[in-house]
């Protein structure tokens, strides 16, 4: 039996009295594809930083191919073949592909002067390893996300890597690009290079990994073979709870549509989009990244004005030129990237909740009614069960799931007819995910109309009453979730 390329035993790590890791062990064989899963804050980031030498464990043992270390530095980890690709890829957007690839080795070899020929050769050799075709002189900032990631992977392979650790690698990739990535991971496996990737997406765990480890609250819950895993077990291991997925049936629907879109188009992004949304309906909009679904949502919210077609709300044609018009017509938008688009992290939870309706909490000249504000905040904290001891606490003190609730609360605090949600449960732990789905269904039952944009197929299937599939800027199919299945959906998406 070959030695494990990585073996960590009983790793403990605490930060000033708070235990981040309570004795976690992990073993990866050469060439193995292993998935590390867990909710936000479970300790998987800490574990990775310990493996790569950024943090020192308080106790426990790290073994690289049989060599035992008590603690390591980042350089030592690299020398032992450990490479980490962080979510931001650690690239220099303002510099060329050549420089991005060659810097690490130039620096490691202590070269002081720039030798363009040598650097170019290094770059060429690096991209050859995975047959990556790219313009070496292009500035990395101009490349697509997938290409940036490939640059990062090429760079990682330059140092005799034995184990590549990828942190949530598929977050910004289209389906096609994910397939390409997985193919590369398999190529690496064939070359004897193991991959440890962090993911919370169940379908990816199934698709690519051979073994998996689930961490919860700093403890390893289980390690096993992926073949023996299923949806229910996965959810249970991740959260410790069991959930029943209830498919949504709209009640309270009206025959007159709340929103009617006719031949809507935005040059370069989507065209000929027509659909109707009724009261109490939850419409699912799905498609690969780049299908135009996000741009459509932004057009419906007034951020990117469509240049052809019409939008009718309650039978009246409205020009959604800007966000204010959309909001005045009862449309709200929960954005894709809640951290940069949805929340004001350092500000208080209360401020985050009321910011979109703040004018209604003040008198005619803008003076705030502080009691009204306090009551409003308390109301929403209660209604959405936001876990916080104090609404003045900064938003950044909350977990991902709670943060998403705040973004929701912000919109629910306004009187909405239509709520558009882009990736409502992205990066949210499974427990919160379930809770949010229940909240959305309740909203629909109370008469709101929702549009959910998501590439989480199980989510779409259970939460929506109607599914629109987009591809290449057009709607390719309208399906009823109760009468279709995942395979048919995928067919229309690709």
């Amino acid at each position, binding site marked *: 039996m070959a030695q494990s390329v990585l073996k960590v035993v009983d790793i403990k790590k605490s930060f000033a009295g708070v235990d981040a890791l309570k004795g976690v062990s992990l073993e990866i064989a050469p060439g193995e594809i292993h998935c590390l899963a867990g909710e936000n804050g479970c300790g998987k980031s800490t574990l990775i930083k310990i493996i790569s030498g950024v943090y020192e464990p308080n106790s426990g043992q790290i073994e690289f191919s049989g060599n035992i270390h008590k603690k390591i530095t980042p350089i030592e980890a690299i020398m032992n073949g450990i490479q980490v690709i962080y979510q931001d890829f650690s690239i220099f957007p303002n510099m060329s592909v050549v420089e991005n690839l060659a*810097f690490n080795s130039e*620096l490691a070899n202590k070269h002081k002067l720039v030798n363009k020929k040598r650097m170019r050769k290094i770059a060429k050799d690096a991209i050859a390893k995975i047959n990556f075709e790219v313009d070496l002189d292009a500035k990395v900032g101009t490349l697509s996300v997938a290409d940036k990631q490939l640059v990062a992977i090429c760079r990682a392979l330059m140092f005799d890597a034995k184990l590549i650790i990828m942190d949530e690698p598929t977050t910004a990739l289209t389906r096609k690009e994910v397939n390409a990535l997985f193919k590369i991971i398999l190529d690496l496996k064939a070359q004897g290079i193991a991959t440890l990737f962090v993911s919370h997406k169940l379908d990816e765990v199934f698709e690519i990994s051979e073994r998996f480890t689930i961490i919860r609250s700093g403890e390893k819950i289980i390690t096993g073979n992926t073949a023996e895993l299923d949806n229910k077990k996965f959810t249970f291991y991740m959260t410790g709870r069991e959930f029943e997925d209830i498919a949504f049936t709209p009640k309270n629907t009206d025959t007159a549509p709340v929103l009617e879109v006719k031949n809507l188009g935005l040059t370069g992004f989507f065209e000929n989009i027509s659909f109707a949304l009724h009261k109490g309906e939850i419409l699912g909009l799905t498609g690969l990244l780049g299908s135009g679904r996000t*741009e459509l949502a932004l057009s419906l919210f007034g951020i990117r004005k469509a240049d052809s077609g019409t939008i009718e709300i309650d039978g009246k044609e409205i020009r959604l030129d800007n966000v204010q018009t959309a909001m005045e017509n009862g449309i709200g938008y929960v954005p894709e990237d809640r951290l940069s688009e949805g929340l004001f992290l350092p500000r208080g939870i209360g401020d985050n909740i009321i910011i979109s309706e703040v004018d209604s909490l003040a008198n005619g000249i803008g003076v705030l009614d502080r009691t009204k504000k306090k009551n409003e905040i308390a109301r929403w904290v209660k209604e959405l069960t936001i876990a916080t001891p104090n609404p003045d606490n900064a938003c950044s003190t909350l977990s991902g799931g709670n943060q998403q609730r705040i973004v929701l609360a912000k919109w629910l605090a306004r009187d909405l007819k239509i709520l558009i949600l882009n990736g409502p449960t992205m990066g949210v732990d499974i427990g919160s995910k379930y809770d949010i789905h229940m909240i959305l269904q309740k909203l629909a039952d109370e008469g709101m109309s929702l549009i959910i944009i998501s590439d989480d197929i199980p989510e779409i299937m259970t939460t929506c009453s109607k599914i629109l599939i987009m591809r290449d800027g057009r709607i390719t199919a309208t399906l009823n979730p109760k009468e279709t299945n995942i395979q048919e959906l995928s067919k229309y998406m690709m």
Partner: protein
Amino acid sequence: MPIILKKLTQRNETYIFLVILVLSFLIEFRSGQFFTPNNIVDIASAMIVPGLFAIGTFMVIVSGGIDVSFPALASLSVYATTSTLFDAKYSGNMWLPIVMALAIGALLGAVNGILIAAFNLPPLIVTLGTSSIFRGFMLGVLGAKQMPVIPKGMSTFGTSSLFVAKNAQSGLTSRMPVAILALIFVLVIAYLILYRTMFGRGIYAIGGNETSAFRAGFNVRQIKFLLYVGVGIISSLAGLIRVCMMTQDHPTNMLGMEMMIIAGVVLGGTAITGGAGSLTGCMLGTALIVIVQNSLILLGVPTFWQGFFLGMLILIGTGVSASQVMRSSNMSKLRKTRRAL
């Protein structure tokens, strides 16, 4: 040929150059005096001190930082040098003053460097504070006063010329100061460092993404520290040359120049956020400001219109650049999505 043209049109520097060209022709048209030998020499001569300041400022801005203390730093190091040598009745050549001023400049730059690189304090605020400290030290502790006479070696340097250009028509002559060699020398060194050494690439890398630079193995602290020391050295050289060329030391003369220098650097296409910009652009942007300042006289515009024109220049220049950025980011968004379709 088309590829070169395409690449040229994508670069900021081309546009600045065109603006300078158009402006020059305009001035030539109005006054007939722009493209005369003595005017060109005058402009080159006027570029020396701002150009040197700009090189240092440029490198700091590319690294993602900023330094507003350099006029005060230069004033202090130069005053200290000049007054010490004057009091000691120094009569030697220029080398000792240069060594002294640069050494003091390096020391003062190191103060900035430690605070910014070691303590990780925000550069704008640190240099704001040190600017005040340097100024206060010079005026308070050293009791700096105007020096109408400076050591002979220095004034000789300032007034000696490389050659003299004569305008045949008007009979006006202008001397090209020896100091222009200093500018050329520093330019060449800066070019070599920025484009031919890992240290220089590191400056760009840090400006692009400091965390990535650290992870890639750049010694970020060291690079930043040395950068601010370097600015101290170059700025002191600039200040010294200015004092020599004026054959006087007026201690507060240079204070307040920081904003115009930064404006010149930015007009030349250097992003204020760091990571982008070229030495060429930096010099072109500075040249543009110098030309506007110097040539208003040629146009017969009274000097008190200068501020107005400079202000308009900065606003229009940065405005155009800002709308370019907006357009190009929209274009790249379009490009990215189209590719994925």
